[in-house]
């Protein structure tokens, strides 16, 4: 049973396209996150949702838009893709926020923009 799943695992696309990455968790957690891991393996939080409400919104281009249809799903839509968007994107979930709960990560989506 996969706890946090992401689709697709790999995504190759051209500059200027729009793409989405989907994330689902079956752990019953209230909080979900998106992280970006760059080519140097540096991990940075992008967004966090708690019970479908946006609670963390880091300084990312507004071409990136998260959407949480319910607390088990958090999708990431990216408009007008640029070369610099190439990275691995991780979804994660935790039982709660502000409490140091363990975050469970998905397998990551490697996005390559050509």
């Amino acid at each position, binding site marked *: 049973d996969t706890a946090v799943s992401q689709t697709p695992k790999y995504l190759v696309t051209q500059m200027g396209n729009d793409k989405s990455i989907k994330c689902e968790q079956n752990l019953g957690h209230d909080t979900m996150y998106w992280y970006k891991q760059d080519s140097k393996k*540096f991990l940075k939080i992008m967004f966090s949702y708690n019970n479908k409400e946006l609670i963390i919104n*880091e300084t990312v281009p507004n071409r990136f838009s998260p959407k949480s249809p319910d607390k088990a799903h958090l999708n990431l839509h990216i408009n007008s893709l640029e070369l610099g968007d190439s990275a691995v994107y991780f979804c994660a979930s935790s039982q709660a926020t502000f409490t140091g709960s*363990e975050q469970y990560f998905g397998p990551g989506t490697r996005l390559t923009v050509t």
Partner: protein
Amino acid sequence: AQTVTQSQPEMSVQEAETVTLSCTYDTSESNYYLFWYKQPPSRQMILVIRQEAYKQQNATENRFSVNFQKAAKSFSLKISDSQLGDTAMYFCAFESSNTGKLIFGQGTTLQVKP
């Protein structure tokens, strides 16, 4: 702003020996959480160990233990009896109880040699 620094980009250790990974952080908060996450070549992020800042006792999980020095803002990870499966990138991370944001260090690549 909080920062997390891992000063050792790469380390290696012989199987069955002990290795210590360093981490320092900077914060003005008194209540926070610290973590070590592991990312093996499979890319999956896995929690290794967690420490609550208000607890003086160092956390331990089987072969993994930490040396938490709150005044020095230091949080090192000790791996005893290293195994080949410990080969991975290790990330130190800080979570503020005010913002709920998980901030990662740059990572240390650990190679366990047979």
